Structures are given as structure tokens and as C-alpha cells.
């Protein structure tokens, strides 16, 4: 088992290598000279040339890449061009709100979507099923910032139930944290509720067609028992895989949600860096998030191997 897991870990290394090469090339080959951007409008050619040398941009591409990889391996993600702080420090300062938002959204979405999907499958073909699926299609299509502003307008401004924007850390004040995180969680969660409910319903429908479900019914087991212990357990692997993929791809939604609700997380950091063209910060954050994506996928695969011994990679 340990050997299999180690083998699976080794297969992720080339992917991370490809990610590093891709990020490097995309940023270097895109038109626009970072040195000119940093120097600002109206800078003299000498200033720009000095900045180029300072950033190592005058070196051949291969040398630049080697230097960057060397830095990465020693745990250095680079230094912000504007704040002159190490990128890893900037990320560490902002990681709390982002992780809190992502985890809360994930838990909330699973708690709503899995029961909804099971219910839709159990009542397949009835109006309950249709209503849940219609809401799922709608939830899939309404952009997170539109939902976010609707929630702010009706629940915060009109009814005064929640603060309009902002963020309070869970360690500072747990009730403040819950009051602030609820609306972002609802806005970001909608699309994942739609996605998870869909996959739960379709996998459950497949499993409910199996012979062992008929047997369980013939034995006289209750409906709930069949649904939860026989059907849902066997439907778990595809559901977990979609939940994992959804979680891994949550980054885009988080960036937008943080902007709508003014949450000081990684998403705001990267948008601000892009607006300021702070290349090392952009490069560092994208790389870290890509590694997180690969790591989550790895964790899901290892989870499978532990849950279902038939699965091999």
C-alpha cells in the first residue's frame, strides 16, 4: 500500500514541473516589458535598463528559469516589486480568510447538496425531483457576484441581518466570524450545491437500479435505511471525486467572492498584484495555488485507494 501511494506521489512531480515551466513561459513571453511597467511612465531608458539588470531580465531565458527554480527549491518564492516583502510572507498573511471561506463553503455545500440529491433520486420523476433539478440548473448559471450582490441588498441592506462586507477572523471573535462569513459562503456555495446535488442524484439513480437494492427492499428494510446505508455508501466514490474536483477548482470563485465582500484573502492579493503588475507576486501565487490543486487531487486519489482497495494507479 505504502509503495502504491509513494508511486502515485512520484507521478505528480512531472505535472508540477510542467506547471512551473508554463507559468514561467507565459509570464516571460507575454508582450509587455515588466521593467518598463515597474519604472512607470516617462522613465528614462537608463532606469529601465537598470531595473532589467536588477530583475535578471537581461539574462538568457534558460538562465532566468534556472535561477527561479533554484530559488523555489530553497523555499524562496521571490520578492514583491512594490512592497519589497517576500512573496511567501504576503501569502501567509492572507491565507487565513481564503482557507476559512473555502472550507466553510465546502462543508455547507455538502450538507445541503447531498441530502437534496438523495431526495431527488428517491423521489425520481416527481415534482420534488424536478424542482431540485431546476434549482440546480439555475444555481449553476447565476454568477457568484450577482448572487453576492442580491444577498447583500436583501439580507444586509434591506433586512439588516448581516454586515454588508468585511471579514473577522475566527480566532478574534467566533460570532463575528459567522456573521461575516455567512453571505460569502451562501454566494460561493450556490454553484457547488448545484454541482454536488446533480452528481449525487445521478449516481444514486444508477445505484438504486442495482440488484442488491432490490434484495434489500425484498428483505423488508426501511426506505431510509436502503437509501443511506446501501445506496449512498455505494454511490460515495463518484460523489467524493466530484466534491474533490469542485474544491480544487474553487479558487476562481473565491477570487470573485473576496472582491464582492471585501475579504482580505489570497484572491484580493492576486487581483491587486495583477492591477499593479507585481510579477513575482502573480507568479508565486499562481504556482502555490497550482501545487495546492495537484495536492488535493493527490489526496483524493490516495483516499480512493484506502476506501476502495480495487482502485490502483
Amino acid at each position, binding site marked *: 500500500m505504502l509503495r502504491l501511494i509513494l508511486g502515485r506521489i512520484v507521478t505528480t512531480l512531472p505535472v508540477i514541473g510542467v506547471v512551473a515551466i508554463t507559468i514561467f513561459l507565459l509570464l516571460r513571453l507575454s508582450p509587455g516589458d515588466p521593467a518598463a511597467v515597474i519604472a512607470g511612465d516617462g522613465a528614462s531608458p537608463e532606469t529601465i535598463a537598470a531595473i532589467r539588470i536588477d530583475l535578471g531580465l537581461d539574462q538568457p531565458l534558460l538562465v532566468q528559469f534556472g535561477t527561479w527554480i533554484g530559488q523555489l527549491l530553497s523555499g524562496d518564492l521571490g520578492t514583491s516589486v512594490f512592497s519589497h516583502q517576500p512573496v511567501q510572507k504576503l501569502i501567509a498573511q492572507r491565507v487565513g480568510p481564503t482557507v476559512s471561506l473555502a472550507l466553510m463553503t465546502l462543508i455547507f455545500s455538502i450538507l445541503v447538496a447531498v441530502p437534496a440529491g438523495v431526495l431527488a433520486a428517491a423521489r425520481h420523476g416527481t415534482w420534488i425531483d424536478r424542482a431540485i433539478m431546476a434549482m440546480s440548473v439555475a444555481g449553476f448559471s447565476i454568477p457568484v457576484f450577482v448572487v453576492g450582490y442580491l444577498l447583500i441588498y436583501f439580507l444586509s441592506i434591506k433586512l439588516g441581518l448581516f454586515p454588508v462586507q468585511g471579514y473577522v477572523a475566527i480566532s478574534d471573535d467566533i460570532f463575528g466570524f459567522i456573521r461575516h462569513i455567512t453571505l460569502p459562503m451562501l454566494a460561493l456555495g450556490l454553484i457547488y450545491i448545484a454541482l454536488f446535488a446533480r452528481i449525487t442524484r445521478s449516481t444514486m439513480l444508477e445505484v438504486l437500479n442495482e440488484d442488491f437494492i432490490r434484495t434489500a427492499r425484498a428483505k423488508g428494510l426501511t426506505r431510509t435505511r436502503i437509501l443511506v446505508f446501501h445506496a449512498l455508501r455505494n454511490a460515495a466514490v463518484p460523489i467524493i471525486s466530484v466534491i474533490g474536483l469542485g474544491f480544487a477548482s474553487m479558487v476562481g470563485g473565491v477570487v470573485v467572492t473576496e*472582491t464582492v465582500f471585501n475579504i482580505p484573502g489570497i484572491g484580493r492579493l492576486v487581483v491587486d498584484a495583477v492591477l499593479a503588475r507585481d510579477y513575482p507576486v502573480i507568479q508565486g501565487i499562481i504556482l502555490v495555488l497550482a501545487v495546492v490543486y495537484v495536492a488535493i487531487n493527490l489526496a483524493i486519489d490516495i483516499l480512493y485507494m484506502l476506501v476502495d482497495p480495487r482502485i490502483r494507479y
Partner: protein
Amino acid sequence: MRGLLQHAVFRNPSVLIGGTLLLILLAIAVAAPLLSDVDPRQIAPRLRLQPPSEEFLMGTDMYGRDVWTRILYGSRISLIVGASVAVLSLTFGMFIGLLAGYFRWLDGPIMRAMDGLMAIPGVLLAIALVSLSGASLLTVIVAITIPAIPSVARVVRGVVLSVREEPFVEAAMGLGTPPIKILLRHITPNTFAPLIVQGTYICAAAVLGEAVLSFLGVGLPAEIPTWGNIIADGRAVFVRAPWTIFFPGIFLGASILAINILGDGLRDSLDPRMKKQVSDRP
């Protein structure tokens, strides 16, 4: 192929509903100058933040521009971006997928590169690409296309791998048909059905992607009316003038919904595997 599409449209209500909504949107985009005789960029400081009325159907924004007119013209950008990204990512994805699926020695390197590209969050990649190469319609389209390519390549490769084992392909190979002809004549047509379905989903995601880029302030220049730009402009005055966000938001959501419904319908009627699953249900 045409028979297949006709079959899909008439058998499936989702295709009809989604398609009709999309056609209405297309009509709005084409007829924008007929539906409003105001210039979408016309600034009128005295008329700023007017609520919806007979004169201003959807109110005015912080510069006194007519929101309805701006939404009309914004639909053009959304449709152009959606359609271009779908066509471009399908074309490139198909090319890459065919190469990887047919030439076994290319498979490993190409698919590892696609895995790497997929690991980078699409929104962030698009944001970085647009901001570094300067925002224009072309860079926005390219930046949204690149993250969409790997999933297309994967689907095409999967189809190639399964089809090349079919007896008719083996027969063609045995007769000495050149590889290029086998690829184009025998394998490519089998990718059309799944690609049409995937293309609609990519189109929906691209419409959203363009709006997200504009909303974050890194998309098309602020003076161009796009749905994302209208919403971004509305952020500052949202409490006083919620219509500046609600109306473009409704159009954006409805368009994505229409394309997704169309995609669901096409998937149910074009993808034989899914169809089987549906008819197997008790």
C-alpha cells in the same frame, strides 16, 4: 450530421428552450441600435443614478449613461467572446487531442503538458495573461481560450483511443490508408457529438469568464460597455442604485442559463451513452 441535429432539436424540449433564448439574445445583440437610439457611452452628469423609468428603462449609472442601452451593446461582446472561445478552444483542443490519441509516442508528453495547464486555476491564468499583454477583445478571447483547451484535448483523445480499436479503423489501416486520411475520414467525425456538447458549456463559461475579468477590473477597457464593466461600475453606487448591478446581472445569468440548458439538451440527445442511461431508468 444534419439528421442528428434535427433529431436533437425536435426530440428535446431543453434544446428548443435554450436555443430560442439564445436566438432572442442574438437578435437583441444584432438589433441594438434599433432598440435604443442613445449612445451607450453618452455621459450626462445631470442625469446620473436615475431610477428605472419610462425614459430610462433600466435607470442610469454613475455617469448618467443609460443602463438599458449599455446592456444591449454589452450583449454583443458577450456573444462574440462566447462564440470565439468555443470555436477556438474546440479547434486547438481537437488538433492536440487527435495528435495525442493517434500518435502514441506523442501521447505522454502532450497529456502531461495538458495536466499541468489544467492544474493552473483558469481564472487566474486568464487574469495574468490579459493584464500582462494589455486588455483588448483579442487578448481577452485568447486568455479565456487557453485554459479551456486541455479539457477538449482530453475528450478528443479519449474518443480517438476508443475508436482506433474499432474494426473499421483496423480494416482501413490494413488496406494501407494513410494515417492522415484515417484521422480525418474515420476518427474525426466520431468526436463531433461530444464536442458540440462541450462547446456549448465552454461558451457559457466564456461568457461568464469575460464578465468576471471585466468585473475584477482586468478585462476590456472600462469605457467599452460589457456586462462585467456595467456591474463593476455599479459596485461603488450599489446601495443607492442597485439597478446598475441587478439588470446586467439578470441578463448575464439568463444568457448562461440559456446556453447551459441548450448544452444539457444536446448532451441528452447527442451522447448515446447518456441516452442509454436515461432510457434505462425505471
